[in-house]
Structure formats: C-alpha cells, structure tokens
C-alpha cells in the first residue's frame, strides 16, 4: 500500500511553503507511511500537547520549528505548559527549569496558536463539534473529543499534533475513519446501585477499570441508570486513558455515536462481553490508592483541569470552613475557567477556606511540590495513577467531599458507605 499525496501536500513537502512546513510535512509523511495510510485528510482544528516541557530535546524541536517560522494553519489550542507564569515562585519550581519551560511556551505561542494552556480544551469555546476531523494530543482530551463530542482524532503523540496543525493535514487512519469507530468490547454494568452512579467518585473508578480491561479496544458501556454529567464523563475518560490506551468509548444512551447497542457496535457482535460487578469496582478503587497511611500533606484537585461546574460543586463544601493548617489544598485549572469562577464568586470562598490555585499547568507537568510533601490525596484517577511513578509520592484517592473532609481534619477520611459490600 502506498501513500498518495495531493498537489498541495507535494508543495509543502518540497518546501514551497517554507522550511517549517517542509519539516512538519516530512515528519507527517514518514509517519503516514509507517502507519500505512493511503492518503492524508484535511483537519479543521488541533490541540497541542507538546507544550509540556520534558527536557532539551522537546525544546530543541519546538525552537527549531519556531526559528524556521512555523505558523499553524488551523485553529489550534495549547495544552498545559510546565509553568504557572505568575505563581511558580510560590512553589518549589527550580528557576532554571522555569526558564526552559517558559522558552517552550514562547516557541509554541509564536506559531499563531491560541494560548489556552489547558488539558480540558473541550470545556472552552474552542470545543470541536460532532464529526469534525481534528488532530489532538493529550490522552484525556483525545478520549473526550472522540467519545463525548463525536469529533474525530487518532490518539496522537506530542510533536505530531503540531505537524498536523502546521500543515492542516493528518493521516487518514484509525479513528478518523467511521469503520474504525465501532465498539468491540461490551461492558455490562451489573447491580451497581443508583446512589453510587450519582456519586462523583464512581466515574474515575469505573474509568480506571475500563482502561485496564480494554487496553487498545473500544469499550461500550451499557447499563447505567442515569445520564452522567460532562465532568463525570471527563473523569471517566481521563482515568481510562491513563490506565489503558482508550481513545474512544461509547456509552449507550449517552454518547452521540451510541443511541443503541447496534449503532455502537456498527451492527457487528462484541468480541467479548464483561459483566462489571461491585467487586471489580471495589478492587479498581483500591488500586487507585497507593498507601494505607492516614497522613496528609496536600489535597490536589483538577486533573483534568477544574471546570466552572466543578468550582460550583466545591464552593458549598468549603463554605464557611477552614482547612487544617498543616495541609495544603490545591486546585489546578485554566486561566479562563479561573476567571469565570472568580466572577461567579467561587474563588473568594476557596480563598477563605485556605485553598491555593495554580493555572496553566498541574502537579504532573511542573516540578512544583516541595520534597516534604509526601502524602497526597485527590479525586482524580489520573493524578492517582501517575503520582507514584512521576512524583514518587504516596497518594490516596477519594471523592471530592472526602478530599474536603480530609483537608479539614488534617488526615485522610473517606466515606465508605456507597462502596461497602
């Protein structure tokens, strides 16, 4: 199978559109060949995960493109960076590291991108629409765009996203194509109490389980009695994309490509059916906690970035209360969402509680936690999944309410009533 390129592709590849476009197109074409694509297709939006500063190689790649005059050709949002530009000095970020991370931010900003600095671009005004072909990086954003919005992106890695954004093209492979979007694994919920389905900590736990059993397959979730809200679907997707390689899920009666089982499977039969029981979910919940200790140094919320609705949910829980003086309470979100939360009056309540805010980044992408903070608690399966390896920290998973209760008490307290057997 050979890749066929159109005239415009050939012009870009030859360098007629400038050296940066040539470099981007050359990488795109090599990867399209590796992936055995027949052709490239037009995209109408991109989200760049390469903004996350990892080290010198990623920075050299960004600055090479920027120096060559790279400009994106489609509306392009930016993922989290390594740095909260205005507040990093309040934390343990080394200044040399901050300088490098900032250079990487400037390089991507110079390409005509929209500096959203968020891992939840689907909760901004740049959210893609049903059927739109896009090239997105950031695993949680990819799974949300495909599953909840019905937009179409492959699971793209860092640095490939920007090549697509510059050229406006992507390989016609994988989840861009209708026939590859059919479910192939049926997950049938079995006797899961409705009260638990309403609880916010149900979704990261279910997502963690789904990622583990699905691996690279497309799971179809059936048997929910309620319609989850946007943030619950966000939490589920982020969890499944961390513990597995899930880039698309269907939920019967909830997600747009799954009004019925038949449509979710595109009229074919599931390869496998798994009954999801409370025992499996209890085990999944246990796996998200990495310590038996009640010790608590910091509560971290906002992975993916906190939405306005999540600020609204948190506000009454902290209203009129004070966190324990020995515990920090951190919320990570985007600049835009934080501004809205401020206008809505939620930030004053959080401040009175003693909470701190970080924008543009999170604890996983910025070395902001000082070494003495060893015991973490979170409501995010993604934080819970990555904290032990990336940060070398002990972490406990709990509901939003558990996190607030624990921050007030100064030690981990979890309400087990919905999870007990």
């Amino acid at each position, binding site marked *: 199978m050979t890749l066929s390129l159109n005239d415009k592709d050939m012009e870009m590849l030859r360098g007629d559109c400038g050296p940066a476009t040539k*470099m981007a197109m*050359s*990488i795109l074409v*090599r*990867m399209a060949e*590796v*992936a*055995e694509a027949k052709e490239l297709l037009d995209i109408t939006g991109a989200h760049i*995960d*390469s903004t*996350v500063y*990892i*080290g*010198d*190689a*990623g920075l*050299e*790649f960004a600055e*090479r493109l920027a120096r060559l005059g790279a400009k994106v050709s489609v509306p392009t949002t930016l993922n989290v960076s390594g740095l909260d530009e205005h507040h990093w000095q309040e934390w343990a970020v080394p200044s040399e590291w901050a300088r490098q991370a900032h250079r990487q931010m400037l390089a991507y900003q110079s390409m005509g991108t929209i500096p959203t600095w968020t891992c939840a671009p689907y909760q901004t005004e740049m959210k893609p629409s049903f059927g739109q072909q896009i090239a997105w*990086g*950031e*695993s949680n954003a*990819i799974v949300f765009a495909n599953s909840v919005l019905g937009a179409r992106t*492959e*699971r*793209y*890695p*860092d*640095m*490939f*996203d920007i090549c697509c954004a510059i050229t406006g093209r992507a390989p016609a492979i994988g989840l861009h194509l209708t026939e590859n979007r059919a479910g192939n694994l049926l997950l049938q919920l079995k006797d899961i109490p409705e009260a638990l389905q309403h609880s916010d900590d149900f979704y990261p736990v279910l997502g963690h389980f789904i*990622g583990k059993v699905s*691996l*690279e397959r497309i799971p179809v979730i059936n048997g929910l009695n309620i319609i989850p809200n946007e943030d619950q679907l966000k939490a589920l997707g982020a969890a499944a*994309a*961390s*513990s*597995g*390689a899930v880039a698309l899920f269907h939920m019967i009666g909830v997600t747009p490509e799954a009004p019925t089982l038949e449509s979710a499977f595109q009229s074919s039969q599931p390869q496998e059916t798994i009954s999801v029981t409370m025992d499996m979910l209890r085990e999944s919940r246990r*796996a998200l906690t*990495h310590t038996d200790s009640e010790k608590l140094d910091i509560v971290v919320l906002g992975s993916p970035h906190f939405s306005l609705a999540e600020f609204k949910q948190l506000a009454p829980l902290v209203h009129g209360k004070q966190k324990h003086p020995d515990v920090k309470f951190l919320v990570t979100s985007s600049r835009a969402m934080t501004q809205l939360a401020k206008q809505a009056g939620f930030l004053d309540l959080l401040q009175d509680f003693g909470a701190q805010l970080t924008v543009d980044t999170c604890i*996983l992408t910025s070395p902001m936690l000082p070494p003495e903070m060893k015991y973490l608690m979170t409501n995010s399966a993604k934080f819970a*999944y*990555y904290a*032990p*390896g*990336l940060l070398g920290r002990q972490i406990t998973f709990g509901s939003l309410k558990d996190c607030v209760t624990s921050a007030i008490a100064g030690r981990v307290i979890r309400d087990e009533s919905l999870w007990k057997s």
Partner: protein
Amino acid sequence: MEKLIIQGKPFISGSANGIALVSNEPLSFWGGYDWKSGEIIDRRHPLSGFNARAKILAIPFTRGSSTTTAVLLEAIRAGTAPNAIITTAMDFFFALASVVADELYTTPLPLVAIAESDFACLHTGQQIVIDEMGSITMTP
C-alpha cells in the same frame, strides 16, 4: 547454545543488539520511564525498577499519555534509551520519537513489530541481535 530466530516487521529499520527486557504489560513512558537514567518507574508495572538503557525492550504497546513520545525522544538524546524496542504491532508513539530523533539528531531508534505468538519466545536476559530486515536472533 541454541539460537532462535524470529522474523519481525521493522517499522523503523535499523540494526541493534543487547540484552532483552521483556514484559507482557503495556507501558506509558510518561510516568513510566525515567529518561535521565533509563529506569522503569511505573510502580504498577512488572518491570518497575529495571533499567532499560542499552537493552532491547519488548512490550506489547504503549498505553496512556501522549507524552510517551517526548520522553522517549529525551532518552534517545540523553543516551538512556533502549537500543531497540520490540512491540506486537506498529506503535505510532515510539515510531514518532524515532522519526523526530532522525530529523533532529540523525539517530533513529530501530523498532520492530512481531506476531503476538512470537512474543512468547522472548524472555528477559536473552542476548538479542536485530538486523535491518527485522530478523531477531535470540541466544538464551
């Protein structure tokens, strides 16, 4: 010693040799691979604590984060990457790191896909030689 040869499909071709480091469990390099040392740091992964620098790493595929590519690219630049990676299918995330490493530093990383049934022939500790055509020779 008896040698075993399996034929893989090179999706980024190149020759390499080294000691095998093998797991059936997929791995995210972000949060799973310390590019400063080559150590596998996903504490939930069976290879946690092993060092993959200059080894032949064999895992079915990458999972999770889209930052896996960036971490592997850093490892290639820093000299802490495996000498080659074997997977059970073309892995886009590894392939991109190799292509970009070629673009920036002209040091692509050899990548070979093998059949799932052949994957069971691989064991940690074997001496492995990979050639440009994707042929994999194992010495126990």
